[in-house]
């Protein structure tokens, strides 16, 4: 009987099955940031076990609040920084080199097909875009990962989501994943892997696949997963060219991780996206979605473009195309946070940053800050933000504030009009 990608990864990484249904896996990458790691470090120190399992397989970044905004965040950064230095973690990214973890680590080539990845961050599911099993965990799982290089999971069943047809103009990966979450509900994939398949995914860039997988957690999913293919090979080629004689050889190796044709799935869902409209959330849960035509005209106070969902170069390109030569509404504050320094530099070289600034956007350094109401764009009570991020929970971007999730294109159109707007008329 055939296996899914997730089943192949579980079988190849199995260290122990202490009880039926619980699998302890060997970890290929343990990623750390300054919000959830310091308490793990403190606990290890208190236990007299300030060690790490392998400095090469630990990646660390200061990204949630950076540069530090106050004494407490400076202390968190210092704890992570001191720990990375103490243990010789060379893949550590500090001010000047840091960016949003789920954009930065893929960009560095750290994630490969077949890998197991954990981080103390729910959006770790992003990295499944490479054909990896990548799961967000809490600080205790992270602590054990750091110390022992293992993590325990209930082996998840897989939901296969076939995305058929072709994406219409003005509709992107973000609209697709919001639509899928609307169909599944916020706990429709709990303890499940969401495997994204079909011609629409095959035609997507790695950036778009990361946007899809990034929001698997918003349906409760453990990991998003896309099949590795030549797009994956091309993206990783600068990092793997010494490991394989040719791209075809790399592809052949990656193909081993693809789900078998006769793999069994818990559910198979088919969606034709050909008639999909741009999608926007309207409430306080990510499954509360509407086509943009049903919510257009709702006023917003701030437009935020960035995050691990949609702060990548292709996102900036789409938004800049709409904003070029235009000025955002005077009632709106526009904030752009390119997700990594490389994205920022590439956007500058392409002239995108000029377009954003001439339109009236504030361009901040790469950081998670505003997405979770920590820094760089926090809302006041009663304010509304049109955002390319991933969570619209009440107060998420600031106590009493509301968030409408949408694509970079829809956010750009919204910035121009000062109210939720259909991007298709600008394309």
């Amino acid at each position: 009987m055939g296996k899914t990608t997730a089943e192949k990864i579980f079988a190849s990484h199995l260290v122990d099955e202490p009880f039926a249904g619980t699998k302890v896996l060997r970890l290929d990458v343990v990623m750390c940031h300054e919000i959830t790691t310091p308490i793990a470090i403190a606990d290890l120190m208190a236990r007299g076990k300030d060690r790490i399992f392998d400095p090469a397989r630990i990646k660390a970044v200061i990204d949630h609040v950076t540069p530090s905004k106050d004494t407490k965040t400076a202390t968190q950064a210092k704890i992570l920084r001191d720990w990375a230095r103490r243990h010789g973690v060379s893949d550590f990214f500090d001010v000047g080199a840091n960016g949003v973890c789920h954009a930065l680590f893929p960009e560095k080539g750290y994630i490969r097909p077949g890998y197991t990845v954990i981080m103390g961050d729910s959006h770790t599911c992003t990295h499944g875009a490479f054909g990896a099993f990548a799961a967000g965990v809490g600080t205790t799982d992270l602590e054990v990962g750091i110390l022992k290089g293992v993590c325990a999971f209930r082996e998840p069943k897989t939901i296969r989501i076939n995305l058929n047809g072709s994406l219409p103009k003005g509709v992107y990966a973000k609209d697709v994943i919001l639509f899928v979450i609307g169909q599944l509900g916020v706990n429709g994939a709990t303890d499940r892997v969401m495997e994204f398949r079909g011609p629409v995914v095959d035609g997507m860039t790695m950036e778009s696949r990361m946007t899809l997988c990034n929001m698997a957690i918003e349906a409760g999913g453990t990991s998003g997963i896309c099949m590795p293919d030549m797009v994956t090979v091309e993206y990783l080629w600068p990092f793997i060219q010494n490991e394989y004689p040719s791209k075809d050889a790399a592809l052949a190796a990656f193909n081993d991780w693809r789900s078998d044709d006769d793999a069994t799935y818990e559910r198979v869902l088919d969606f034709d996206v050909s008639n999909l409209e741009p999608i926007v959330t309207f409430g306080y849960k990510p499954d509360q979605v509407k086509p943009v035509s049903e919510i257009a005209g709702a006023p917003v106070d701030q437009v935020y473009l960035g995050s691990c969902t949609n702060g990548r170069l292709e996102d900036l390109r789409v938004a800049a195309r709409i904003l070029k030569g235009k000025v955002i509404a005077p009632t709106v504050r526009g904030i752009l946070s390119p997700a990594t320094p490389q994205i920022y530099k590439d956007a500058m070289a392409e002239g995108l940053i000029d377009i954003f600034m001439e339109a009236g956007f504030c361009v901040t350094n790469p950081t998670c800050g505003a997405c979770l109401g920590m820094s760089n764009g926090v809302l006041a009570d009663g304010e509304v933000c049109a955002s390319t991020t991933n969570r619209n929970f009440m107060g998420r971007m600031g106590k009493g504030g509301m968030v409408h999730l949408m694509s970079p294109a829809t956010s750009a159109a919204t910035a121009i009009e000062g109210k939720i707007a259909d991007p298709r008329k600008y394309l």
Partner: protein
Amino acid sequence: MKAFGGPVLFLDRSDINTDEIIPAKYLTEITKADLKPYILEDLKLSGFDPKSEKTASARVIVSRANFGCGSSREHAPWVFEVNGITAVIAESFARIFRQNMFNCGMAAIELSRESIDALFAYSAFSDTSIDVDVENQTLTIRGGGKEESLPFDVSPFDKALVLAGGWVDYADTKY
């Protein structure tokens, strides 16, 4: 092993997320104890007051489906722990929250909708309390002069974590 039981806080809504349990702005605290004042600060629910004596005296939470969804922050179980709440009983949990509870040696107990409804029937009484016996997989609810016991399922691994006092101690002996 931690003790599980005492007065109950009923939170009658599905999809209570970890931002509601502990807002992100408090994630800059670097000790668990410092989280204590902020428990459930952003939860807007009719009749619920995070600063009430009822919240302060609670040792068990009973809620609905998909409890603890959203962020992976273990600060959510920690803010319960430092407030004396060591068990959450719900129709279902988000995966990361559920595992975080067991990893800390605490209990996240799933019951059928019918059983959760039966527990909520006790929310009318001011003296309601629940004892959770993880080893024997039984909980007992008392209130308004009534008492019932309900069996529950817990995976053998999660049970072992509770008995070991959490995942770090368990993993450190074994791996």
